């Protein structure tokens, strides 16, 4: 077993005991990654920090239910992402104006040639973040959940209270918009 895994297990066990030192270590360990998750759903630093704190409170409350079998980071990430979605819901009555199911027509998408996209091997993380931020809340949320958090459309539909078709439609349009940003050199690839 890797030392890191052992250390993490010890920290988690400390958190289960509600030990502040362990909680601080866990917070510091995942702060950077989880704040980046929060950033994808919000527009400003303060909101992201607030969501992060709410998320970690939930994590510390629920950490006793972690079974040490799966990936802890995955478990943590889901709680943080769900907190972000809850936060969007709370802050606005109709936070994400999801489009009607009928809007989804995959054929309308005119993607870049695969070969062209293939040539873009890497995309700077900051630019990717910037591009996602430029998406509308509806597209951004579905794109985050589907592509980055790897939820299924069915799960997204349940989480957001929309239909699967709407989820697919929003994803397709999010991707289309991101693609347009690439084409118009709004974002540049290395």
């Amino acid at each position, binding site marked *: *077993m890797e*030392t890191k895994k*052992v*250390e993490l*297990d*010890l920290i988690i*066990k*400390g958190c289960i*005991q*509600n*030990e*502040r*030192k*362990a*909680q*601080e270590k866990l*917070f*510091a360990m995942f*702060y*950077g*990654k989880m*704040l*980046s998750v929060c*950033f*994808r759903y919000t527009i400003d630093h303060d909101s992201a*920090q607030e969501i*992060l*704190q709410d998320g*970690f*409170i939930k994590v*510390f*409350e629920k950490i006793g239910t972690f079974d040490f079998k799966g990936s802890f980071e995955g478990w943590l990430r889901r709680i943080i992402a769900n907190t972000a979605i809850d936060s969007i819901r709370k802050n606005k009555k109709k936070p994400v104006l999801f489009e009607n199911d009928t809007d989804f027509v995959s054929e309308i*998408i005119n*993607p870049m040639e*695969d070969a062209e*996209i*293939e040539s*873009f091997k*890497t*995309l*700077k*993380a900051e*630019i*990717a*973040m910037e*591009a*996602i931020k430029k998406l509308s809340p509806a597209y951004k949320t579905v*794109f985050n959940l589907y*592509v*980055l958090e790897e939820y299924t459309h069915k799960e997204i539909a349940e989480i957001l209270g929309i239909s699967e078709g709407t989820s697919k439609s929003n994803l*397709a349009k999010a*991707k289309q918009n*991101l*693609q347009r940003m*690439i084409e118009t050199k709004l974002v540049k690839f290395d």
Partner: protein
Amino acid sequence: MNNIEEIFRNSLKNIEAPYDPKAWEAMSKRLDQKLPVKNPKTSFKWTWFASGLIVIAVASYFAIQKNEPKTILADKSVQQKTEISAENQIESKGKSVKQVAKINESEITQTTNTKIENQIQFEKAHLIFNPAKIDTPIETISANALLGTPSVFKTPKTGTKYCENEIVTIQNSNDLSLGLVSSNGFNSVIKANSSSNIELNPGDYFYSYLLNGKKEREIAFTVYAKVKADFYADEEMVFYKGLPVSNLSSTNTASKYTWLNDKGVVLSKEKSFDAHFFSKGNHAVTLAIQAENGCESKITKNVRCEASYNLLAMNSFIPTSSNSKINTFLPYALLERNIPFTMQIIDPKTGQILYETKSESEPWDGIDKRTQQLIAPSTPYIWKVNLEKTEIGESKNYQGTITRFED
């Protein structure tokens, strides 16, 4: 279109904002509200114990004062007031020592007796109440502080993980006792400034100690169960590519495997491997494993080899036969193993070499190179093979006899 997904996924996969320590400060404050760290009941007891000590200290002081000449000069009412103040102080946690002392002072000025001795007495009483002249509220003055014990507890420096049956020395360099408890039911106290050797059993171990009247608990280390190493060997040895093969396989899945022979030479680092045993008898093989939890275990077993290996050489041939498989002589293993060698055929009567070859394509055809004649039948000749490259545990030299049979 999925490429877009991939590109964004890859680019954001490892994105990490820099850590801001202030974030934890804010987080910690919220945690104090949402998930306050509970003080165990024992700390409550300790608070009362500390309070009791103060009462005893005050009472003792005045008992002593009564017997000293200076106390005779003191106004009795001041003593009584002071005692009452001490009790009040214990009961009303919010008040500071300093505040109580000030009240006493004002009360003293109201008394008619203003002799300097009273002032001296008051100062002494004040010192007993507040030995370190602390402005801190009484509730934060711990039993430890009153007893002159340190305000910091250093938990022993140990590893974060151990394995079953390991013995660890826990050094408690504090002036306070240290408790060591485990989820497996283990419970021990290591006295102040002493050490203890503890044999570990699987479970989570915690340090427990009383500091500033609070029971503190910290995860110490985790002890993992040992996975006992064991292996099995193929019952029958087989020959593969000219070599004797016995498959040995660990019965447990582990993260690391090390197979050793009786000389400590590493035979393999795989879970299962083909071992080669060349001589008849028992061969001690040790398997050391490191389980996935990091714990190590090893076992040594004898693997029985039923027959010595001699390059799979036949002991007779028929040079006059038309069958190419039997009309020349070369130990069979040399055809399979593809290793550099030298083979000599020796006349047992004279010790002279009558044939030598280094190539598997030039086996001995039964001709004595000295006379260019076919050797006599039914007479055993000696063959010797020297290998330039050998397997672990294998001899470089082999020998046997070869006899010509007539067709």
